C-alpha cells in the first residue's frame, strides 16, 4: 500500500531555474588543476559531464556536486558549480539534506565502489529507497585507488591485491542488482569511454525525478589496469556489450552475427538471434522491475554479457517532494501560526508583579 500524496508527476529539473544563456563546457570548468593519474577513466567522465551539463539549460549556480572520499570524489573541485567534497561514504546523506531543503537545485553525488558500496552502503540503499531527487554517479573501477590498491566490494573473487596476496575470498556486489533491490526508481549503466551512451544515460537521469543511480565502468590504470578491456576491444566487445533501450528488442552484436536476449523460465538467456523467432526476443521495458533485475543478472564479474543503458526508469513520489508538501500543507492549514501561542501552551498561570 502506498500513500498517494496527490503530487503531480514532474521532471527532475522542473523546479530548477532555467536559463536561455548559452553555456559551454568551459563555463563549467573550475580553475583547479586536475590531479588524477594519467590514463585514469575519471578524465573521460569529467569531460563528458562538462560537455553534458551546459545542455541541461539550467543555471550553473543551481547545480551542486557532492562527493565522498576516493579518487572520483575529487570530481567537484574540477567543476565550476557549487560543490562539497565531504567524508567517506556520507555524500548521499549530505545530498539528501540539501535536496530536501532546496527544490531549486540539481543535486549530484559522485562516488566510487568503495565509497558507495562499502563504507557508505547503508546511505546508498536508503537514498535509493526514499527516492530523493538526486543523481548518483557511481564510478566503478573495482579497486581502492586512493589508498593504493586494495580490493573493493566489486573486485572479483580471487583478486590479488596488496591486502589479499593470496587472492580475495570476498564475494562482490553487483551494483545494479543492489540498486534495484533497494527500490531504485532509476538505474543506468555506461562505460566511461562511450561518451554518447554515457551522455544519454546522464541526460535521462537528470530528467528523472527521484534518485537515479548510474554505474560507470571505469579503469584505474595504476592498480587495476584493463579491467574492462573485454568491453572495449573491438574483437570482444560486440559479443559482450548489450545496449538496451526502452521499447526496443534486446539484440546485439554485428549485423551478420546478431545475438538476442530471450526469456527462459525465470531467467534471461543470450541466444543467436537467427535461432529464435523474433517474437521470442525480449522487448526492453524500463518500467518492469523484474525484467530490470533479470537483465542485471546477465552480467557477472567475468563480463560475459554486460548490459548498458537504462535498466529501470519509473515515476514514484520522491521523498523530498513529499516532505516539502507536508510542510506546505501544515503552513496552509495554519496560516496564522503563532510562536507565542506555541510557547504558552494550553495551561499557563500568571504571577503579577
Amino acid at each position, binding site marked *: 500500500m502506498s500513500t498517494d500524496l496527490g503530487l503531480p508527476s514532474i521532471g527532475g529539473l522542473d523546479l530548477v531555474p532555467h536559463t536561455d544563456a548559452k553555456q559551454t563546457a568551459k563555463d563549467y570548468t*573550475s580553475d583547479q588543476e586536475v590531479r588524477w593519474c594519467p590514463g585514469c577513466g575519471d578524465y573521460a567522465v569529467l569531460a563528458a559531464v562538462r560537455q553534458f551539463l551546459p545542455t541541461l539549460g539550467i543555471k550553473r549556480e543551481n*547545480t551542486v556536486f557532492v562527493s565522498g572520499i576516493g579518487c572520483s570524489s575529487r570530481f567537484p573541485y574540477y567543476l565550476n558549480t557549487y560543490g*562539497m567534497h565531504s567524508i567517506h561514504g556520507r555524500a548521499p546523506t549530505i545530498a539528501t*539534506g540539501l535536496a530536501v531543503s532546496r527544490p531549486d537545485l540539481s543535486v549530484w553525488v559522485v562516488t566510487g565502489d568503495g565509497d558507495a558500496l562499502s563504507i557508505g552502503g547503508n*546511505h546508498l540503499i536508503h537514498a535509493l529507497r526514499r527516492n530523493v531527487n538526486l543523481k548518483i554517479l557511481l564510478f566503478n573501477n573495482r579497486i581502492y585507488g586512493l589508498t593504493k590498491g586494495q580490493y573493493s566490494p566489486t573486485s572479483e573473487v580471487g583478486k590479488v591485491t596488496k591486502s589479499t596476496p593470496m587472492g580475495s575470498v570476498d564475494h562482490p556486489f553487483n551494483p545494479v542488482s543492489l540498486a534495484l533491490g533497494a527500490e531504485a526508481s532509476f538505474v543506468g549503466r555506461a562505460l566511461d569511454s562511450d561518451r554518447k551512451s554515457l551522455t544519454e544515460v546522464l541526460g535521462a537521469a537528470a530528467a528523472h525525478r527521484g534518485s537515479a543511480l548510474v554505474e560507470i565502468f571505469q579503469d584505474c590504470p595504476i592498480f587495476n589496469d584493463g579491467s574492462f578491456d573485454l568491453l572495449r576491444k573491438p574483437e570482444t566487445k560486440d559479443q559482450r556489450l548489450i545496449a538496451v533501450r526502452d521499447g526496443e528488442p534486446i539484440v546485439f552484436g554485428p549485423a551478420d552475427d546478431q545475438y538476442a536476449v530471450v526469456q527462459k523460465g525465470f531467467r534471461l538467456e543470450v541466444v543467436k538471434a537467427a535461432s529464435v523467432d523474433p517474437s521470442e526476443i525480449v522487448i526492453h521495458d524500463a518500467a518492469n522491475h523484474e525484467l530490470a533485475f533479470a537483465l542485471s543478472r546477465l552480467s557477472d564479474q567475468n563480463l560475459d554479457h554486460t548490459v548498458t543503458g537504462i535498466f529501470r526508469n519509473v515515476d514514484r513520489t520522491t521523498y523530498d517532494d513529499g516532505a516539502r508538501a507536508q510542510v506546505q500543507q501544515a*503552513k496552509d492549514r495554519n496560516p496564522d501560526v503563532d510562536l*507565542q501561542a506555541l510557547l*504558552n501552551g494550553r495551561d*499557563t498561570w500568571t*504571577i503579577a508583579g
Partner: protein
Amino acid sequence: MTTNDVAVTSEPEVVTKDRVVIRFAGDSGDGMQLTGDRFTSETAAFGNDLSTLPNYPAEIRAPAGTLPGVSSFQLHFANYDILTPGDRPDVLVAMNPAALKANIGDLPHGGVLIVNTDEFTKRNLTKVGYDANPLEDDSLADFQVHPVAMATLTRGALEETGLSKKDAERAKNMFALGLLSWMYHRPHEGTERFLREKFARKPEIAEANVLAFRAGHAYGETTEAFAVTYEVAPAKLAPGTYRQITGNTAMSYGIVAAGRTTGLPVFLGSYPITPASDILHELSKHKAFGVTTFQAEDEIAGVGSAIGASFGGALGVTTTSGPGISLKSEAIGLAVSLELPLLVIDVQRGGPSTGLPTKTEQADLLQAMFGRNGEAPLPIIAPQSPGDCFHAALEAAAVAVRYRTPVIVLSDGALANGSEPWNVPDVSALEPVDPQFATAPNAPDGSGEFWPYLRDSETLARPWAVPGTPGLEHRVGGLEKADGRGSISYDPDNHDRMIRLRQAKIDGITVPDIEVDDPSGEAELLVIGWGSTFGPIVAGARRVRGKGHKIATAHVRNLNPMPANLGEVLRRYKTVLAPEMNLGQLALLLRGRYLVDVKSYTKVSGLPFKAEELQDVFLDYLSGDHPDTNTTNGATHGAVTGAQA
C-alpha cells in the same frame, strides 16, 4: 467507632506545609509517568514551584511485577522557588510489592505510605523476594501506612460502565491520582479535561478514567482513614506568565524559535535514541513553523543531512545522545572544517557504550570538547534547568549562525524528562540574528572572484554563500583549505595558520561573564558546576548557609569558550569544589586551563545529586573534615563519600 463519630470527625485537619515530595511508584505498565505528569500539571496550575524526576526502566515492558520493571515519578512542590526534585519522598505511593521494595528505603521514618493492597498476593510477594506480606507484619511500623484496595475500589466505581474487569482495573492509577489530589487540595478540572482529550477516540475509556479519578477523590473525602490533608500555598515566583515544561520540550521550542530569530528554515536530521527522541517527535509537529524533520537511516545520516541543509542555507540541527555523538564525530569534524552553522544537541545518558539509556549522567563533556580527530574546536553550551534548554538552544543557534560553526548543546536525561514552571519568554523580545548570506564576490585582489574562506575581521567567521547565488560558485570540503581563497592546500605554514585561525575563531566567541553567588562576599569555598547539577548545588548551598556558613556558587553555562573572568573567579577562593556526575571532567578542564587546584566531588549513579548529599559534602569541606581539604593533589574523590551521604 460509631457512625456518629465519623460524622463528627469527618472534616480532616488541614496542615500547612512549605514543601512536599511525592513519589508515585508502580509497574512500568501501571501508568506512573502519566499519573506523575498529571499531578505535576495540577500543581503547576495551582501555582506552586515544582521540580520533577521521572525514573523508568529502559525496557518498554519489563516483566510485570518485578523489581527491574518498577517505574517511578517524583515530584517536589513548594511555596517558594525550589531547585531539585527532592531528596526523599514525604509520601510514597506503591502500586505493587516490587514498587514498595524498590522505594521504601528512601522513605524517611514517619513518612506517608499509600499502598495498593490488591497487588499484594502471595505470588507477587514471592516474585520480589518477600517471605511474608509486609503489610501484615510490623516491618512498616515506622511509617504512616494507608492500605487501599485501589483495583477493587476502581472496579467498583466502574461497575456501571460495563467495562471488563481488566479494563476497569487499568484506571487504578487515576484512582491514586484522585486520592492524592484530594489530600493536597489540587484542582482537578485540568485532569478531567486532559483525560477526555487524550481518549477522545475512546469516550468510554475517557469516562472510566474520569470516574476512577473522582472515585479516588471521594474515597479520601468519605473514609476516615486519612486524618490530615495538606496545603502548600502557591509560590512567589518572579512576575510573568508561567507554564510547566520539560527540558526536551523547551529544547524543541528553542529550535523552533531559532528558526524565527535567524529567519532560516529549520532542518532536523535525527535518528531515534533515548532520551533525545522526544525532540524529534515534538519538532515533527511544528512543520507550520517551517520546520522539516527527517528521520534518517542512522546517526551519521542524521548529522550528514543537517550539514547538507546548512550548506543549502537552512539551520541544520541534529539531536542525539552519547552513543550517537560517537557516531557523528567525523561529520561534526567535517562541519568544523566546512565552517557551516550546525546545531548538535546531545541529551546525555549513562555510558559508556549503551550504558544506562534512561538514566542521567554528564560524562560527555570531554567527548564534546575533544571527541574529533585533529584540532577541531567548537562551542559548547549546557543548560542548567529544563526551561533553560529553550535559551540554550537559541543561544547555540545564534553562535552557530554568527560564527559559521557547529555548536554542541549538552543537555542530560534529568533535564530532558524533568520539568519545572517556566517563565514563558516574550517572543517579541527575542534577539534577531542576521545570517548575512554572501551575495557578491569578495576577493581583495579585485579579481571579481569569490573567496569562501576570507574571514570577517571581527568574528573570524567566513562568508556563507548558498547554492543558487550567481557568481559565488565554490567548492568546500574536508581537505585543508588555503587561507582566504579556500582552494585545497597542503602548504605546511598554511595548515598551521588555519589550525590557529579556527581555534582563534572559537576562542573569540563572546560569552557572558560568569556570575558568582556569594551573599556574604566572604566565602572561602566556591562550588562550581555545569549542566543539571545547578539545582542540587544551589539547594545544597542554601542549606549550608541556613546553618550559618559562608559558601559561594557559580555555574559554567558556556563550557567552550569559557567566560573570560572565570580564571580570576577561581583564584579568588581558597577552595574550589566541582561536583559532577562524571569522574571529574570539568575539574580536569579547569585545572588544565587555569592551574587552579580544583577539587572534585563525583557520583555516577545514573541519578541526580541530592541536596542533602551535597550539603554534607560542602559541610565537610567547610569544617576541614574532608580528606581533600588537606591535600594539594586531590583529583577525583567522592564516590565513597557520596554513598555514605
